């Protein structure tokens, strides 16, 4: 009886995610920070799973960073978003999937605003028509790209060449999952598991053989926080946020971190370098940091893609110790080679955190 009750409650935390025909929009900053992640998402969905995912070069920024930094007003950002929806409508799609958590939160916010204030939507429609002569339909389903990978996590596990397991000891890798704040903290019903039990990344980790680490600051912000980072005077606050998370997860000795937001992997990765250079402290084993990945990179590793094709050489924290644990083969001499096979310059190594 109790079990049925729990099952019923859990069903309310689920999200309806259609299986096919998606209009995909990229993230501004993910393409710069982790350039292969979005390519891997399309590769997995189109070529591995045979899904129809459409994207257009006419897509622009959603305006989220400018909006959250209070650089542009809400009506401007709504008109930008209306234009993205117009592109989707013109392409004949109803399901909208975005790569960025900030965008996902913003799209959700804007659609909720329009539902609550229809006169505002009418005004934005007018703005868009005056500016571009376009019209739009709001998406029938809105999803974040991690929702789709979550939905197909078992299909990915079936095709897996490697698992999140320590090849030498057979022990599941201890994985810290970090979900972007704008995924389900603002609108809990829009994320898998809501704000209380977010399961989108934990589900992937469990399906692919890993063990999720539950630590006190698990739901704490990564430290990006827009103005906390963008304004240099506040940047220490951003750093302290990340420091707090690492201090909290350190006793659990995590092997890796998986994230689904553009800012989180960047800050959890780069701030480890800054903390090491300022305090001399590192959080991984043997003087290394804890490697941080996007969920597409982890999916790519599990499916057996070459780590350097996944763009893992763009990470600050060395990923090689984790690749060794998983048994993923890689060529160290290829790490800093360009697509043309020529050797790029090797970056300068930091003083206090070990790199390869």
């Amino acid at each position, binding site marked *: 009886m109790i079990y049925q009750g729990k099952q019923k409650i859990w069903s309310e935390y689920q999200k309806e995610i259609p299986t096919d025909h998606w209009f995909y929009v990229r993230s501004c900053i993910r393409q710069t920070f982790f350039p292969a992640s979005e390519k891997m998402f399309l590769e997995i969905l189109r070529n591995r799973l045979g899904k129809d995912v459409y994207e257009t070069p006419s897509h622009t920024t959603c305006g989220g960073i400018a909006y959250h930094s209070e650089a542009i007003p809400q009506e401007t950002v709504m008109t930008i978003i209306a234009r993205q929806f117009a592109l989707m409508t013109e392409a004949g799609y109803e399901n909208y999937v975005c790569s960025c958590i900030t965008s996902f939160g913003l799209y959700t916010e804007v659609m909720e605003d329009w539902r609550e204030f229809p006169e505002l939507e009418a005004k934005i429609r007018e703005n868009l028509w005056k500016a571009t002569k376009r019209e739009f339909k709001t998406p029938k389903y809105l999803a974040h790209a991690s929702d789709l990978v979550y939905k197909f996590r078992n299909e990915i596990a079936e095709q897996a060449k490697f698992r999140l397991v320590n090849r030498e000891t057979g022990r599941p890798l201890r994985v810290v999952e970090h979900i972007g704040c704008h995924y389900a903290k603002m609108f809990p019903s829009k994320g898998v598991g809501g704000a209380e039990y977010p399961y989108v990344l934990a589900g992937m980790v469990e399906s692919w053989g890993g063990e999720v680490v539950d630590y006190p600051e698990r739901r704490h912000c990564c430290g990006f926080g827009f103005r906390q980072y963008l304004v*240099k*005077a506040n*940047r*220490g*606050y951003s*750093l*302290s946020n990340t*420091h*707090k998370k690492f201090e909290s997860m350190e006793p659990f000795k995590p092997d890796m971190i998986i994230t689904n937001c553009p800012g989180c992997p960047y800050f959890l990765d780069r701030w480890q370098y*800054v*903390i090491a*250079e*300022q*305090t*001399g402290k590192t959080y991984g084993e043997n003087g290394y940091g804890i490697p941080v990945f996007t969920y597409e990179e982890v999916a790519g590793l599990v499916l057996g893609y070459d780590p350097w094709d996944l763009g893992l050489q763009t990470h600050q924290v060395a990923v090689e110790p984790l690749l060794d644990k998983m048994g993923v083969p890689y060529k160290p001499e290829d790490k800093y080679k360009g697509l043309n096979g020529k050797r790029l310059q090797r970056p300068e190594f930091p*003083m206090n955190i070990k790199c390869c």
Partner: protein
Amino acid sequence: MIDFGYGLTPSSTLKIEDVRLPAFGELLRREPDAAKCIACGSCAASCSAGVFTEMNLRRVILSLQRGREKETLPLLRHCMLCGKCQLVCPRGVNTRHLILSIGKVYQLEEDKR
């Protein structure tokens, strides 16, 4: 070590073992108004001493509740007991008696050590 122009800020974590609850309990026994404070800051805004020093009754009360008396008790030395805070307090806290009671309780605690 590299200077990036910013750094880690000290943790504001409170440790329950640092909070001297018996001392605050004694303060409440002597002056129950200490529990009435809603930390609105009217006392700090109207404080004559606060213009020239860091005297801030609101901060003192909050700090005592959080076990940080060492940082804030010295501020009370700047108080002239003029009573302007008592006039503006929306909760009618007897601030002068509260300040004198804080001095007595925490000085007594200090003497016991």
